[in-house]
C-alpha cells in the first residue's frame, strides 16, 4: 500500500495527460461541490424558517367566526354571529383535550391613523385584548417589566404591554416607559412591560413590534365590545393531536351559536400543527430532491472517471501485458487500477467538499443577522456527518469506477496484451 513504486505509477499514469485528468476529476469535484452547496442552502432555508417560527406553540389552533352558509333552526343563511365570553368556560368544561384557551379581541388597528399618544409623541399601533395565556402560545421576550397576569384580567386593569417599536416612537431614548401612562384611543393605560417578539414568520395581521397588549376584559369594557370574543387560540394537551381539539371545539361552538353542524364554513380555523407537518414534509422533500440531484451529478462525474480509466487501461494494455508476463497477478493489476481511480475521485471529491463548505461558510459569515426581520434563510452550513457520508460515497464510487476498467484489463490474455500496439 505504501510502496513508493505504486504511488509513482499512479502519479505517472495520471500526469501523462494532465488536462484530461483535470477535466475528469472536475466532474467529481463539481458533483460534490453542487451537493454541498445544495445541502447547505437547504439547511439555510430550514434554519431560517424554523428560526422565524421561534417557540410558537405548534400544537395550537386559531378559530374565528364567519357568516353562516346554511339556514338552521329558523335562522337564515349568511347570518353574522360572534363568540362570547361564556364560550371560554364552555370550551374548558366540555373539551378535556384542550390545554390553553386564549381569547382575543382586536381594539382597532394602526390603519385608522394615530391612536396612541404619549406627551407630544403619537403613533398608530395595533391594540389587542389578551389573556396571559397568549404569551404561552406566541411567546415574546420581555425586555422590561412583565406580561399581563390573571389579576389584570380579573380587575380589568388599565395596563399595557408595548412592543419595542412602540417604545421607540412614544418615549425618549433615556426615558423609562415602565409606570408611565399612555393614551390609547382616548383612555389612559399604565405601561407595565416592553417586549420583543420571537416568532417573526408568523404574524396575526400586523407587525408584532408595533402592537400593544392590554387585558382582554379591560378592552371589552373600555371600548364597548360587550361580551364579544374576536377569536380563540387553543392548544391541545401534550399527547393529543390538535385536529381533535379543532373538530370538537368547532362542533361545540356551532351548537352554542345555533349554527348547523353541517356548516363547514361558519367557523374559520387555522391548525398550526397541520401547517408545521406540511412544512416538515416540504423540507424532507427538498432534502430528498437535493440528494437525488446531487448523487446524480456525482454519478455522472464518477462515470466520467470510469471512462477515462478505461481509456488509460487501453493505452497501457501493453504495459500491463509486460507486467503480467513478469509475474504481476490479476489481483495486483486490479488493485493498482482501483487505487488510481480511488485516489483521483478522493482528491477531486475532497476538493469539492472543502470548496463547497468554504463557500457556504463564507455566505454564512456575510449573511446579515436576522434580528427582527422575517427570515427565510439562515446559517447555510453542512453537518459534519453529512460531509463524512458524502466523502464515503465518493471513495466507494471511486472503487466502483475503477473496478470496471480493472476487470477489463485482466480479462485480456497476457499474450494478447503483449501483442497490442
Amino acid at each position, binding site marked *: 500500500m505504501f*510502496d*513508493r*513504486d505504486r504511488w509513482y505509477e499512479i502519479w*505517472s499514469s495520471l500526469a501523462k495527460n494532465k488536462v484530461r485528468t483535470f477535466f475528469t476529476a472536475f466532474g467529481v469535484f463539481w458533483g460534490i461541490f453542487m451537493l454541498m452547496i445544495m445541502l447547505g442552502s437547504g439547511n439555510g432555508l430550514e434554519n431560517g424558517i424554523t428560526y422565524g417560527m421561534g417557540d410558537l406553540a405548534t400544537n395550537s389552533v386559531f378559530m374565528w367566526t364567519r357568516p353562516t352558509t346554511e339556514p338552521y333552526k329558523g335562522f337564515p343563511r349568511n347570518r353574522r354571529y360572534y363568540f362570547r365570553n361564556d364560550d371560554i368556560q364552555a370550551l374548558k368544561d366540555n373539551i378535556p383535550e384542550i390545554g390553553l384557551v386564549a381569547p382575543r379581541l382586536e381594539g382597532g388597528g394602526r390603519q385608522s391613523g394615530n391612536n396612541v399618544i404619549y406627551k407630544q409623541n403619537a403613533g398608530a399601533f395595533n391594540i389587542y385584548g389578551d389573556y396571559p395565556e397568549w404569551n404561552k402560545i406566541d411567546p415574546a421576550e420581555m425586555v422590561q417589566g412583565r406580561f399581563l397576569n390573571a389579576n389584570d384580567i380579573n380587575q380589568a386593569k388599565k395596563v399595557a404591554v408595548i412592543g419595542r417599536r412602540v417604545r421607540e416612537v412614544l418615549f425618549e431614548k433615556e426615558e423609562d416607559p415602565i409606570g408611565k401612562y399612555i393614551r390609547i384611543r382616548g383612555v389612559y393605560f399604565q405601561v407595565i412591560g416592553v417586549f420583543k417578539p420571537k416568532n417573526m414568520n408568523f404574524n396575526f395581521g400586523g407587525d408584532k413590534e408595533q402592537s400593544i397588549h392590554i387585558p382582554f376584559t379591560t378592552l371589552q369594557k373600555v371600548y364597548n365590545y360587550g361580551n364579544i370574543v374576536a377569536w380563540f387560540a387553543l392548544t391541545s394537551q401534550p399527547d393529543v393531536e390538535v385536529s381533535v381539539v379543532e373538530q370538537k371545539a368547532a362542533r361545540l361552538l356551532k351548537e352554542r351559536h345555533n349554527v348547523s353542524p353541517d356548516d363547514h364554513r361558519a367557523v374559520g380555523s387555522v391548525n398550526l400543527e397541520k401547517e408545521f407537518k406540511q412544512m416538515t414534509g416540504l423540507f424532507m422533500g427538498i432534502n430528498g430532491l437535493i440528494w437525488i440531484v446531487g448523487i446524480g451529478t456525482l454519478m455522472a462525474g464518477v462515470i466520467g472517471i470510469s471512462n477515462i480509466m478505461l481509456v488509460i487501461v487501453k493505452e497501457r494494455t*501493453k*504495459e500491463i501485458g*509486460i*507486467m*503480467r*508476463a*513478469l*509475474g*504481476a*497477478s*490479476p*489481483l*495486483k493489476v486490479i488493485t493498482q487500477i482501483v487505487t488510481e481511480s480511488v485516489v483521483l475521485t478522493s482528491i477531486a471529491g475532497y476538493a469539492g467538499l472543502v470548496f463547497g463548505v468554504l463557500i457556504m461558510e463564507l455566505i454564512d459569515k456575510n449573511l446579515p443577522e436576522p434580528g427582527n426581520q422575517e427570515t427565510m434563510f439562515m446559517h447555510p452550513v453542512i453537518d459534519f456527518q453529512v460531509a463524512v457520508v458524502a466523502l464515503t460515497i465518493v471513495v466507494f464510487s471511486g472503487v466502483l469506477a475503477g473496478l470496471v476498467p480493472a476487470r477489463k484489463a*485482466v480479462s485480456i*490474455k*497476457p*499474450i494478447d496484451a*503483449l501483442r497490442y500496439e
Partner: protein
Amino acid sequence: MIKFNGIHKSYQTGNSSLHVLKGIDLEVTSGEMVAVMGSSGSGKSTLLNIIGLLDVHDGGDYYLDGKLVKDLNETKAAQLRNKHLGFVFQSFNLISFKNAVENVALPLYYQGITRRKRNKIAMEYLEKVGLLPWSDHLPNELSGGQKQRLAIARALIGNPKVILADEPTGALDSVTSQEVMELFTQINKSGITIIIVTHENDIAHQTQRIIRLHDGKIEKDHKNGHFVPHTEFAKTI
C-alpha cells in the same frame, strides 16, 4: 524440464478455426540451449507462448519441471512465470517511464521484495550485463543492444529455470546480435535452460539443438553440428 505430449492449439477467428499446433511432442532437458526455427506461421511463437504460460493449449499434456500444467488460473500462472520463467522479447518490452534499475527490479516487486533490497539485486544484474553506468537511464536513452541486455538482466533477476526468447536479435544488427548471443551462451553455462525462437540460421547455429517447425508440426529436431539448410528457406532465396 519441459515436456510436450501431443500439444494442440488452434485460434478462432470469426467462424473459421486456424489450427496452429498439430500435435507437438517435445522434451527439453534442464540446461539445454535450444533454437526453434520455422517460417512465419509455422507456430514457433505460439509454441513459445504456451511454454511461457502466456497462452493456453487446447489439447495434449504439458509438464513444466515435472508438473502437469492444467486448468491454471491467471494468479497461479503469474506466480509460475515469476518464479520459473524469464522472458526476452524482440521489441524488448521495457517499461518506458521506469529507468534501467527499476525495469530490472520489476519481477522482484511482484515477489514482494522491498525496494531497497530489490534495487540492490538489480544493480548486481546490471553489472553482469555490463550496464552499470546506465543504471539511471530511461530505456529510450539506450541503444538496441543495451535495451536487449537490460531485458535479459530483467529475465534473469527472478532466478528462473528457463529463459524464453522470442526473436531476441530480430531488431538488432549483426554485431550486437553477436553480443546478445554470447550473453545467452554465458547464462546457459550457468545451468539455465534457454529456448530461442529465431528465423536466423547463424543465431540458431550457436545453440546445441535446433527444432524446425513446419505447418504446426516438428519437421526436424537435431543436435547442432549437423546443420541442414532449411528447404523452405532455400526456396525463398
